């Protein structure tokens, strides 16, 4: 008995993998692009599930798998044409198969009728192939309420008699995916949102009305409420939700899928949501799932086949299936359809708070371990050999533990990258440009927080690349480039950071235009001599926008400076490299995690501080002749042919007993995110160390010049310095022992005009 149940478990585990294989294959299956290997793989997967099921006596499952298999066999023999409708049906069949497996796994019988609808649909494809081979598209009839023009061959009427309710159920299900009537107003996008909350939604304190209202705020919404699941009054449980809705939303193109997803953010796990978009021809919305990429010509909308089960089935799902289910809407949004209701998966969903606590505790352990190690160093040698060995092992384990815990939070950037193809199509449609997006390195992993915060900057930058960077197809042809422009998005790990590059083969930055715009806006003094690189970097200045006309896409003047701010708030840097006529490349360099930081511990007086390693260029002890007095003080140092302003940390922070003379202490040459340099005068460099970032703000408040705090090996708190903040402070004269320095203090005397100083200072690389 035990043996048998163990085999059963193996069967279910294998079946889960086979289902994933089948689904992945189905999602790649598209009309006109039938890969026979793929079809065979799907057939084999279904066949194996059927075979194993037979061995265990799961008769219903086997019967259904047989239907599925028969249709796949038809596809394999090319007797059944691959249509979008067929692929939809097959995907649904795959879901039903997953459900049947779940029931079998529980040892319960599936509720009667679970498979009816899908079986009917499968048989229709089979019949259509047998009786009407000339008919290419064969789709279930739309529901009576729907106002779809009769674009589908309408010969199901007699079948409806045979399959009765089942067909109606499919028709209803199809209806959800179908677009509402009427053309989409130009310049707008019509979203059809089918919102089917679970009956228990209200129990978790959620209120669907708010979500519907939120949707209405996004545009012109028409909301239809469906009562078909409403039970008779005597059966009505007032605490359960029996309604579902279909919302047709006519919205501006700026209202993206994310905005709609956001509305349902908190209930995504508790409902079945299908969102489809439709735009005026030509279609500009792309969906993530390949089978939807091609649709019958009568449907300008590209529907997204969510891997969700048909409604009747969803309602009948056993409680055990629920833990796996919440992943579904998300999986649909990401276009990865690996999730199956009802089957045990190899991943678990964990509250992020729990992981954060774990990360914190590991941080504590690292600190404690460092502390113990410090004390042990003072012990007489030789006497405590075993203790020392034990501690060495502990240190090793601690390091591994930390790496492992950090890797829990790591996520591949593909979750962000996968959103971009859609954005590109949207932008291409709106600008009338032809754009191909190439991505690479999607599997590069980085901390979840970093991933989340990448969405906005990347969205902005890709829009910019298409709107400003790429030329129109005609123009491209004129200059001898292919009509289709290419935007390349790549990610890779490089020396402990993640580097993301966005490269386009467009016209590059128009430096003359940028410069004249900057002068016009007063960002640069007229006549200032800037290098090409400096001009390119002007686009990161606040309030800068080169688009002559404010377009729908970008050019609202909140572009690249916001991007840069977001990136630097993540501890990252951004750079741009442009070649006129050949394109531009934007490079983002970000830390892999926001929880730890590579820092250099420095001392000033009796205090210790941590400087982020990414800010440090080099450290040196200047010779007296390198220092140049301005207004009788050593404020400027010559370093590698450039004048760098010196900032005495002890003056800025009022620290007593520190070394004032830079020739007796050290100068740490630091660079801020925007490339300007400072020389920080400190007493000593104590060493490089990974530190755990701790918030100063959660119990106190933000301090100028301080980014955060950390705890060093001896348990003492050290502040992590914010180099950009220090620069701001020193500009306001905090570095001057004799009082505020005149604001016009020339930091880089090589520039003639005073307005240019600011710019130069920011842009010096």
């Amino acid at each position, binding site marked *: 008995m035990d043996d048998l149940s163990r085999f059963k478990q193996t069967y279910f585990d294998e079946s889960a993998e086979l289902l994933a294989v089948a689904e992945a294959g189905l999602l790649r299956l598209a009309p006109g692009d039938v890969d026979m290997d793929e079809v065979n793989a799907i057939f084999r997967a279904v066949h194996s599930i059927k075979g194993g099921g037979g061995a265990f006596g799961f008769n219903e499952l086997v019967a259904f798998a047989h239907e599925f298999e028969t249709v796949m066999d038809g596809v394999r023999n090319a007797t059944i044409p691959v249509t979008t409708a067929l692929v939809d049906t097959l995907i649904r069949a795959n879901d039903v198969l997953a459900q049947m497996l779940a029931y079998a796994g529980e040892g319960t019988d599936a509720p009667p009728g679970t498979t009816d609808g899908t079986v009917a649909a499968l048989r229709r494809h089979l019949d259509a192939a047998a009786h009407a081979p000339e008919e290419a598209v064969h789709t279930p009839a739309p529901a009576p309420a729907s106002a779809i023009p009769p674009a589908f061959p309408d010969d199901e009427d007699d079948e409806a008699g045979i399959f009765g309710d089942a067909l109606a159920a499919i028709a209803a299900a199809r209806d959800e995916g179908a677009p509402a009537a009427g053309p989409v107003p130009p310049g707008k996008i019509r979203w059809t949102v089918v919102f089917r909350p679970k009956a228990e939604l209200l129990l978790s304190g959620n209120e669907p009305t708010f979500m519907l209202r939120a949707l209405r705020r996004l545009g012109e919404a028409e909301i239809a409420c469906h009562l078909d699941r409403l039970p008779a009054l005597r059966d009505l449980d007032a605490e359960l939700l029996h309604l579902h809705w279909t919302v047709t939303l006519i919205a501006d193109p700026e209202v993206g899928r994310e905005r709609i997803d956001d509305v349902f953010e908190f209930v995504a796990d508790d409902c079945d949501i299908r969102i489809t978009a439709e735009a005026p021809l030509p279609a500009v919305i792309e969906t993530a799932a390949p089978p939807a990429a091609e649709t019958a010509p009568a449907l300008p909308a590209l529907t997204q086949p969510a891997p969700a089960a048909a409604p009747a089935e969803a309602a009948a799902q056993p409680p055990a299936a629920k833990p796996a289910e919440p992943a579904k809407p998300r999986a649909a949004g990401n276009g990865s359809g690996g999730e199956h209701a009802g089957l045990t998966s190899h991943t678990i969903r964990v509250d992020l708070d729990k992981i954060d606590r774990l990360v914190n505790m590991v941080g504590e352990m690292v*600190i404690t371990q460092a502390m113990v190690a410090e004390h042990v160093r003072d012990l007489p040698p030789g006497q405590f050999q075993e203790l020392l060995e034990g501690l060495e092992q502990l240190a090793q384990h601690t390091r591994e533990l930390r790496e492992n815990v950090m890797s829990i939070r790591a996520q591949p950037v593909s979750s962000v990258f996968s959103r971009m193809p859609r954005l590109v199509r949207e932008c291409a449609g709106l600008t009338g440009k032809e754009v191909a997006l190439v991505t690479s390195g999607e599997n590069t992993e980085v901390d979840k927080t970093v991933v989340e915060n990448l969405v906005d900057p990347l969205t902005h930058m890709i829009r910019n690349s298409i709107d400003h960077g790429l030329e129109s197809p005609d123009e491209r042809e004129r200059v001898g480039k292919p009509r289709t422009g290419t935007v390349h998005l790549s990610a890779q790990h490089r020396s402990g950071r993640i580097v993301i590059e966005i490269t386009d083969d467009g016209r590059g930055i128009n430096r003359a235009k940028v410069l004249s715009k900057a002068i016009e806006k007063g960002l640069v003094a007229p006549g200032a001599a800037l290098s090409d690189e400096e001009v390119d970097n002007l686009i990161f200045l606040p309030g800068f926008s080169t688009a002559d006309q404010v377009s729908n896409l970008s050019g609202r003047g*909140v572009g690249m400076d916001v991007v840069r701010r977001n990136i630097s708030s993540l501890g990252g840097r951004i750079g741009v490299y442009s070649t006129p006529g050949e394109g531009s490349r934007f490079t983002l360099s970000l830390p892999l995690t926001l929880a730890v930081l590579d820092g250099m511990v420095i001392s000033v007086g009796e205090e210790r501080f941590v400087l982020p390693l990414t800010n440090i260029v080099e450290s040196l002890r200047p010779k007296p002749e390198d220092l140049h007095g301005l207004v009788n003080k050593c404020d400027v140092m010559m370093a590698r042919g450039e004048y760098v302003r010196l900032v005495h940390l002890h003056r800025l*922070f*009022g620290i007593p007993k520190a070394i004032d003379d830079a020739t007796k202490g050290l100068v740490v040459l630091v660079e801020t995110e925007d490339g300007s340099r400072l020389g920080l005068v400190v007493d000593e460099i104590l060493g490089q160390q990974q530190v755990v970032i701790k918030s100063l703000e959660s119990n*106190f408040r933000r301090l100028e010049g301080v980014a955060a705090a950390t705890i060093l090996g001896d348990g003492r708190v050290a502040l992590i310095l914010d180099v950009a903040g220090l620069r701001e402070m020193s500009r306001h004269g905090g570095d001057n022992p004799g009082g505020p320095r005149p604001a016009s203090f020339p930091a880089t005397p090589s520039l003639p005009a005073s307005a240019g100083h600011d710019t130069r200072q920011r842009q010096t690389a």
Partner: protein
Amino acid sequence: MSSSMALATVGGTRTDALSLNGTEEQYVTFTVGNEEYGVNILAVREIRGWTPESRLPNLPDYVRGVINLRGIIIPIFDLRARFGGGGTEVTKRHVVVVMQVGERTRGILVDAISDILAIGQDAIKPPPDVDSGLIDAEYLSGLYTADNRMVTLLNVDKLFANEHGDHEPANRTAAAIDKAS
């Protein structure tokens, strides 16, 4: 009041304290110089010996700095300095009263803990009219007499509350701005 009673109240909530003692509430009292102060026991999370702080730049002298309280970083305020007595010369015998006010935790440096008192609301006298230039009257919630000693009861919600700028973390703010735009 028995000590077990005191513990029960510490563990409970404010309403528990009221239901147990009617209008009585418990106060932890401590000394700073020759003066004795009291704070509501419900706000006191722990009392710990003095450990060296890390200084924070460019802040008034009553902000002594920050310490590591089992992994969280909390600010330490010097009550003597706040009331104009100059910075405390700390010794190992000084103590920090760690208080939880709302979401925030902070420590107050005092000379020594002196007592736990159960004080009836009607025994608390309002603070006399004092020159607001000398004392921040809003810090004081009342005066109490215990065995001929005067105990100044402090309003923990107000105490050093203005030292917490309500700054959001910078990156969150930036993200919010970007979302809004």
